[in-house]
């Protein structure tokens, strides 16, 4: 009866409205439908034709299905989710733990969406770079080699001596060792800090840097996420948005978790050009600790948070029941340009 292709006349609506118990139905259903009829002026004789066409095209639906085919970029994004680089740990004479990390900046062509390659600048061959992880008070020692044709640096967020701040460019072919005590505990980031900033960052020189507190956080299943964007035509606007560098990665490979288990997501926003990015979880709420450095901080209980460029935090949630929980940026544009995924709770 309510065929959207059929033009609904005013009289028709009145008839529906007049029919006692249909009245309610009429007001809720007919209105959206009559809005639809505006957009189609097919004659009734075309209806069968349209239906046949729809059946033929049934396999292909509106929207976007990234498929589940494995590809280099997809596997890299899946790995980035749970791969934490603790460095090479050793004990110093004074009893402190020293963690040695190797970082190299170079030009890499990376797959950032199914079939699309992006000529980027990357730390250790991935965008985002490796997630570096240590405990508060550890001595972090990063041997940074610049294998690119441009000067680069690593600027860590945190509290450290200013000569270890990554403001000095490291020339191509040169090596620099960043050494500092890791503090404060919390969710940090690192990125190249050589001008022009937008170019050096948007091409891919950034990553997550997690400093665990001395008293460990509650045990949880942990994930690392970097929200970013890619500007393909270099017009200062992103064409593709991703988490961990591959569009729709967690649509193709939903993140598997257990219902009832504590989940912790270290999430940062390294998107260039767009001022904000956001994280929204469907059918559930989470606790959000901005930066996560203040042990006394009261979390923010919500289902949507936003982060400015360079902002980051810790998301903690428990999935109450098995199911498919969507998550995405709440900027619809980012969502449909790649920043969308699923948690599957079992």
């Amino acid at each position, binding site marked *: 009866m309510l065929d959207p292709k059929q033009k609904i006349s005013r009289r028709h609506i009145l008839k529906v409205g007049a029919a006692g118990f249909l009245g309610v139905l009429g007001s809720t259903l007919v209105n959206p439908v009559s809005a639809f009829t*505006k*957009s*189609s*002026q*097919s004659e009734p004789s*075309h209806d069968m034709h*349209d239906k046949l*066409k*729809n059946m033929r*095209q049934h396999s*292909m*639906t*509106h*929207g*976007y*299905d*990234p498929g589940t085919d494995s590809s280099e970029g997809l596997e890299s994004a899946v790995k980035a989710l749970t791969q934490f680089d603790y460095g090479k740990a050793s004990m110093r004479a004074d009893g402190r733990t020293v963690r040695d990390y190797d970082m190299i900046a170079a030009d890499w062509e990376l797959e*950032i*969406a*199914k*079939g*699309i*390659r*992006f*000529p980027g600048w990357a730390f250790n061959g991935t965008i985002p770079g490796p997630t570096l992880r240590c405990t508060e008070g550890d001595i972090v020692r990063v041997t940074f080699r610049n294998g690119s044709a441009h000067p680069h640096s690593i600027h860590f967020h945190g509290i450290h001596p200013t000569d270890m701040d990554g403001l000095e460019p490291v020339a191509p072919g040169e090596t620099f060792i960043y050494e500092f005590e890791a503090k404060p505990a919390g969710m940090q980031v690192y990125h190249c800090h050589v001008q022009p900033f937008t170019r050096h960052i948007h091409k891919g020189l950034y990553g997550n840097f997690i400093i665990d507190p001395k008293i460990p956080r509650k045990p949880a299943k942990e994930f690392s996420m970097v929200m970013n964007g890619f500007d*393909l*035509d270099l017009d200062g606007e992103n*064409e593709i948005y991703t988490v961990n560098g591959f*569009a*729709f990665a967690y649509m193709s490979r939903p993140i598997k978790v257990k219902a009832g288990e504590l989940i912790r997501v270290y999430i940062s926003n390294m998107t260039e050009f767009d001022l904000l990015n956001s994280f929204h979880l469907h059918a559930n709420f989470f606790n959000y600790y901005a930066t996560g450095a203040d042990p006394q901080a009261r979390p923010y209980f919500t289902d949507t948070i936003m982060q400015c460029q360079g902002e980051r935090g810790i998301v903690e949630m428990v999935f109450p029941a098995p199911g498919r929980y969507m998550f995405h940026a709440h900027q619809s*544009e980012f969502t*449909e*340009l*790649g920043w969308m995924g699923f948690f599957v709770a079992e």
Partner: protein
Amino acid sequence: MNPKPNKRMVWLWGIAPLLLLAVVILLISNVGTGVKDQQAAPIEVLNIERIVLQDDGFQVTVLNSGPKEVEIAQVVVDDAFWNAEFDPGPTLQRFELATIYIPYPWVEGDPHEIRLITTNGLLFSGEVAAAMKTPEADANRFLQYALIGFYVGVIPVGLGLLWFPFMRRYTTKGIQTILAFTVGLLFFLAVDTIQEGLELGAEAPGVFQGTGLVWFGAILSFLFLMAMDQSGKRTSGSLAEIGGKRVSYKIAGGIGLHNFGEGLAIGAAFAAGEASLGTFLIIGFTLHNVTEGVGIAAPLLKDRPTWKTFLSLACVAGAPAILGTWTGGFVFNDTLAALFFGIGAGAIVQVIFVISKMIVRDARRFELPAVSWLNLGGVTLGIVLMYATALLVNF
């Protein structure tokens, strides 16, 4: 001297440069040019030739006019990744055409943007200014377009020809003025046709040199018609000598090509969903083309043509508008259109050349000035009239 080895020598001289050329090309392709610069960015060119809107989405025709094969990795519609099917496939060889089916709930009257992202991350986009279902090429549409072409082409030209008995009453001076008026009309049409052709040529894929095609088409059609004239009759003299009918047919032919272009514009307007523009164009072109009939009839003023001649003249000049409307409505192609416009312009210029010569000869014979005030008035009136009626169809 022995003629045989001599002949062989001649052949050798003919072939030697070709052989050497082959050697040089082989050398360059194997050894390189010596310049070792790497290409900064991949060169890929995709031309979105046509976007058809169907009930269930878009159908996009795309041409690879770049130097290498191109693979389309993703389709983005209005800033959203979207499912798409490729026929024959997402990889296009050089000069290969592909059709992309995109199921999409487009909204009537809204603008839509379709972006293709290649594997190298290059973007190519096509726009739908205001979405409307593309008319399907069924028998009904065909007839409707034919009727439109008939209104725009055959009818106004025929009406213009009906002035013939009225024009006949004029003296030599009057006929000269009418011919001058025809020159004015044709001059306007030549300029207009070249302009339109250049505009379309600029839209055509770069590899086909669309704007170049306009000039090539023009010069070749001009020379072709000149050659025809000069091989047929050696004397090009007064109207009576070379036959007014012949000149009239040539004018009709040139104007026919011009009207083909007008049909293209109307058909393309309908295809692009600009129905109101289409109606407006029909009225405009109909008025515009009445004057063309006068121009075609002018060279016949000293002949005794039958009604059959007029009918076939109206068809030669007017019927191409029908073809144009079909082409514009169903299979528009910027490159070919640019070439047609060039050919049309060349034909028109050649006719101007012939008529001007006629005016000069006749003027000399009757000891009148060729560029009399009356004749100048005729030319001016022709241009002004065309200009004024063109205001109806230009934006």
